[in-house]
Every structure is written in C-alpha cells, then in structure tokens.
C-alpha cells in the first residue's frame, strides 16, 4: 500500500471537501473562483498528482468527492461541455506533457475556462487514423502545420486542441507521426461547421494553414505520435459505455414512453420487437454493471470492448422502431435548420432526430466494424487480415 492510499480514505476526503466548502460558501462564491479553489485543494480529480488538481488518491474515491460537493449545492465544471478536455486531453497531457505545460494547461481545462477539441480524424484518415496527412514541418523555434481535420466537436468554442501530425513521410505510417498541443485562437486555424444528416452541426472541419506550434507544446518524442495517441484513444473508449444507467435509461426509455403514451398505435408485431429490444438493452445494462463489479474487485474483463458496439446496435434499432410505432407522426420532423448545439444529446429532440443521430453511434469513436475486428483479434485471438501497409513508407501508400 502506498502512502497516498493510507492518507486518503473516504473520510479524509470528506473532511477536505468540508474545508473547501467552509472557506468558499458556494452560495456566495463566484462559480469560477469556487472551481479554482476546488482544483487547488486537490479535489478536481483525486487520482491526479498533488499540485495538479489531485491528491494521488485512488481514482474510485472521486465519486465520494463529487457526491459531497453536489449535496452541498456546489457548482460543477459542467463535465459534458468539456468532455474532450477531461476525458482525452487531460490524461494525455498528464502522461506526456512537461511540468510547465501541465501547470499551464490542466487547471483552466478542468474548470472549463479553456475548452479543448481533438484534431485526429481527416478526410483521408478515418478508421485508418495512422494514414493521416496533416504535415508538421520544423521551423527554427517550432513547427509549421498544414492540413485538414474533420469531425471535430467543440472546435468553434475551443482554445486548445490535441493534434496528431505527419512529421516524417519517408517511414512507415505508424512511425512518422508527432503529437502536439495547438493554440486554436491563432490566424492559421479556420473552423467551419460540418452539417450532419440531422440538419444541425455538432462537428466541424478544421483547416490548418501555416499554423504555428512552439516545440515546447510537443507531447512525446518526435515520431512517437502514434503511441501518444493510443493513450488518448484508450481513455476515450473507457469513457464511452462506462457509466451506470438506471433501467430504461437512454434510448429504450424514450421508446417505452412513446409506447405507454400512445395505446392506439400498438400492434402485436411492434410489441414483440419492442420487448425484444427492451430485453437486449436491459441485458447490456446489466453487462455494464457486471463489468463495473469486475473492475471493483480488480478483475477487469474483456466485456468493455463490446459495450460501445452493443450500445450502438441497440440504440439504432430502438430509434428505428420508434418511428414505425409513431406511424403517421413519423412523417414529420421538428426542424431542419442549421443549428450549433453546445451539448450532444443522443436522445434529445424528437423521434426523427433520434433515428438520424443514432446512425452516428456506430461510426463515431471507432466504427462498429473496427470494434468487431478488435474483439475478434484481441478477445477471441483470431488472426488479423494480411496487411500490405505496415512496412511501406507513408508517402508510397496508395491513396
């Protein structure tokens, strides 16, 4: 047992929370001032190091802290608004950033003062992220970046981005990448909304034209961008499908509500399909509970690889069924006008929106096909497809 585990049990953390609340009454303290005080007390993310918003305490104790602050009516950092910063940028900066970068970036990231986005995917690099083409070239005191990124949530509100670039086209693709932190507010960065099939634009395209990055904002070694990106992506998949849900949480609850509200639309065939999907949603909700129980006793199972795949499949079928249940009402849509939602809500708006938005669930954050490959190869141990690109210089790949 480490010193930190000894010193921080749940009781010690509760006492620490009480100290913060006593010194900064949430009712009278400015929201941002309160969040900064919470960060400085090490209660932002307790598993982070001392001085960077944490206490080196066990990660599972975070829920104790969150519950205490919530019970006291304290403001939170609106985690859904800054999910990419919290879930993806922060763990990567923590692991690969210099001390100076950590000190500069993590506090405003956590409080939400500075919003983060992720510049990974490109028009020519989706599932095959390692094929990316955005070039970073050495300048005397840093790097000059040119290229195009796509599917970027929050780019229009972000101050900072995590960015993966091609720095050496002459070596095989996985070896020629470098990872940076990019200032999004500079002139070389142009953000354009990317309109989706729902009519709205959650995402953006980001065009980088002679954008500049000081070398001090590089994360990891030159050429080690792929390894650094793996840290980011692993944290992304931990975040998806990892949360506890009540029964009928999410999409299944919406469709069940429609079913209960509209008895005149019921048919035996629709009912059988609905109950079948209800059971599937419930089975995978329980599988999520099972996964968390395994983690709690230190026996992580491979189930995690499948949770996002199951979520996407079930959500899509439920959303599709709801439109069939709605019959004539399925012929209408709330509105197609181009909007810029600040939060992504898979089950928000009307049934038509839910159906269309759910189509993205099997594409974003790893397509269902890539996830099936991962399950087949890493869980079941089946051989990979023969690869023709592993030992070819990036510049010589067919594209």
């Amino acid at each position, binding site marked *: 047992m480490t010193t930190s585990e000894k010193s921080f049990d749940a009781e010690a953390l509760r006492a620490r929370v009480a100290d913060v609340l006593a010194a900064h009454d949430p009712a009278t303290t400015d929201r941002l001032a309160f969040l900064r005080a919470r960060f400085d007390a090490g209660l932002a993310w307790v598993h982070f190091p001392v001085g960077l918003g944490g206490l080196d305490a066990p990660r599972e104790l975070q829920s104790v802290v969150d519950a205490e602050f919530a019970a006291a009516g304290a403001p939170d950092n609106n985690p859904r608004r800054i999910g990419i910063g919290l879930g993806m940028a922060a763990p990567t900066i923590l692991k690969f950033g210099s001390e100076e970068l950590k000190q500069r970036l993590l506090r405003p990231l956590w409080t939400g003062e500075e919003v983060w986005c992720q510049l990974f995917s490109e028009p020519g690099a989706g599932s095959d992220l390692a094929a990316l083409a955005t070039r970073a070239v050495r300048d005397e005191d840093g790097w000059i970046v040119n290229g195009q990124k796509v599917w970027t949530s929050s780019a229009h509100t972000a101050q900072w981005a995590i960015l993966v670039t091609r720095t050496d086209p002459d070596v095989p693709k996985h070896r020629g990448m470098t990872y940076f932190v990019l200032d999004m507010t500079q002139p070389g960065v142009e953000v354009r909304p990317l309109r989706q099939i729902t009519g709205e634009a959650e995402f953006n395209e980001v065009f980088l034209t002679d954008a500049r990055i000081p070398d001090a904002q590089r994360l990891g070694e030159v050429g080690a961008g792929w390894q650094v990106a793996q840290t980011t992506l692993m944290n992304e998949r931990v975040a998806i499908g990892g949360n506890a849900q009540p029964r009928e949480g999410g999409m299944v609850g919406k469709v069940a509500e429609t079913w*209960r509200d509209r008895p005149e639309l019921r048919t*035996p065939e629709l009912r059988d399909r609905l109950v079948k999907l209800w059971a*599937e949603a419930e089975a995978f909700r329980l599988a999520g509970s*099972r996964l968390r129980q*395994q983690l709690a006793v230190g026996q992580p199972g491979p189930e995690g690889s*499948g949770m996002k795949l199951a979520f996407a499949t079930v959500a899509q079928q439920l959303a599709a069924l709801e439109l069939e249940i709605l019959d004539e009402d399925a012929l209408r849509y709330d509105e197609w006008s181009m909007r810029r939602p600040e939060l992504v809500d898979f089950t928000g708006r009307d049934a038509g929106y839910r159906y269309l938005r759910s189509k993205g669930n099997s594409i974003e954050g790893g397509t269902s096909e890539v996830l099936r490959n991962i399950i087949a190869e890493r*869980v079941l141990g089946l051989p990979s497809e023969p690869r023709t690109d592993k030992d070819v210089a990036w510049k010589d790949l067919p594209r």
Partner: protein
Amino acid sequence: MTTADLLYSDVETDLRASVRDLLNDRCEPASLLARVESDEPYDLELWHTLARELGAAGLAVPEELGGQGASTREVALVLEELGRSVAPVPFLGSAVLATSALLACDTASAEVADLVRKLASGTSTGALAVPLSTMADAEFPTAVTAAADGTLSGTVRSVADGAAADVFVVPATGPDGPGLYAVEATAAEVSAPVSFDLTRPIADVTFGGAAATRLAGSDRAPGAVTGALSTGAGLLASEQLGLAQWCLDETVEYLKGRYQFGRPVGSFQALKHRLADLWLELVGARAAARYAADTLARGDADAPVAVAMAQSYCAETAVHAAEECIQLHGGIGMTWEHPAHLYLKRAKASQVAFGAPGRHRAALGDLVDLPG
C-alpha cells in the same frame, strides 16, 4: 435490483472447476456420440458421481433436508457446465424441476421431506410430470386426474428426463381440486418417443390407476408447479449460456486452424465479425443469466422480470451460437461424427422448453408495463 451480484464467487469458481474436470474426463464427444444411439442414452454413472460425490443434486436444498444449503446461483453454475458438455444426465428434471416443486410443498411433512432427501442425496432421481414446453403461467395441468382412492390416471407427453426417473412428481386434479403427487416409476408406464434432443431425451408417461402419495393439495400444488417451471426457465438460461460458450469456443479454435485460400479462415473479416457479434451476444446472455440466478436465489421481487428476460434472450443466443457453429465449421459441421449437432439439437429443443422466447417476451411486456 441494484444489489444483484453478477459475478462468480470464489466458491462458485471452485465448483465450476470440479464439475468441468469431471465432465472433461467422463463426457467427451466421442463417447457421447456412441451413447446417444445406445440403449442407455443417460450416463447414470456420471450422474451418480455428480449427484452423490459432488453433491450437485442437492445444491439448493437446505442442509436440514439433506442438501448443500447453497442456492440457485450454484445450481446455475452447474447447468452452465452441463450445457457446455451437453451432458446426458437428468439434472434439470431431478435437481431443478422435481426438487423445486418439492421444496414448495410442506417440507415439515414426512413424505415430502423424505423424498427431498432422496433426490438431494442422489439416491433417487425425480422428474416433474409436465411437458417440457410448459410455461410457468399456464393453467394447472389437467392431463392426469386423481381418483377418490388416491390413484392417478392419464398420460403426460414429453417429460424431460422422464426415462431416468425413479419417481415422478405429478400435478393432477382430483375431487379436491389440484394436487401434487409422487408416483414410483415402477407404477407408471414410461415410453421413449424419438427425441429431437439426443442428450436430454423426453419420455411419455402413462399412469393407469397408479398408486400415488399426495404431497400437496390445492393450497400449494399450483404454486409449486408454477414456481418450479419459473425456476426451471430462469436457470435453463445458464445451461443455454454454457452451451453457447462451447459453440463459440469450438468455432473460434476451428477457424484458427482451418486453412483455405492460403490463410486461416479465421482471418477473414466476414467470419471474424460474425464471431465478434456472437461473443457480444454472450456478454449480454451472461449478464442476463447471472441476474436471473441471483434474483431467484434472493427471492428478489424482480425475479419474474429476470426470468422472462433471461429465458427469452439466452434461448435465442444458444440457438444462434449452435447455428453459427454448424455454418462456420462448413461441411464437417453437418456430419454426424462432429458433436456440433448435439448442441444444435439441445439448443433448439431448449428454445421451446418452458415456453418459446416470444411467449416470454409477452410475459415480460406485461411485467414491465409495455402492454399489448
């Protein structure tokens, strides 16, 4: 329902290892195939080892009635392993159905307690005299009637494990209404129709004025039958899970070693993706089956939901797994010599056991306020 323990405890894991060792040793595919066409479709020696030496027959029976004092969680675990081996032992009929029905009778009565002890110790094998396809919400069976003198008459078709039974637990309607009776197998006429499931054959049982012992009257008999069938449905999900797991494991291994077009066929995405989907289905099935076993063990109010969900889901998973096993094995999967067909036959027969999935979904819809 937030307190459900969905894991396998250390004790359960040890139990699994013991049962698996026994089955690996004594129930390998070649001897299983030879047995199914013999005069002895049941492996009674294996059954006696399992029931008597490992104590599996009395797992969920209280210690004061001669059992192990464990719960449906452990019974479910044994069923997982039996499903994995499609073992030809009358565990479902005796240790699950007949025993559950008896435990719902008045165990303070000497007749009931005596019979429970015999089944729990494995010295006697029981079967519940209802068609295997009976769903828990069905009307009380009327196939057998009890005369005023206490003898039973009538025929029950498709009784699971009936051919291995020493004693039948028989729901019958008499002058006083529904009752539950015990009839020695020697007092009944047991015939073996050709069974679709080769490793859990059914029997047709005829009682022609058979001498019977009354175990419960109209106050307890209907609940005992319903409870046994509901427990059977909920725990069969674990057998279906174990069966599906064998099919998946076997298929994965085969596809790693089978070469066509100069590479292992398991490297083709078209096949890998099907197996990944099947694996995922098993993740859901395991959660559902564990939830059913746990809620039944605790007498949780959510148990009826858990049973309907687990049986509808796991029945389909088992059939899907067995069908994929045949298809992805290609020609060898279609042969009699490969054991895959034993799993398909068990899976398909089990799908209609205790009510086909659509009927469980209808019940589930009623339970969770999704009315028809």
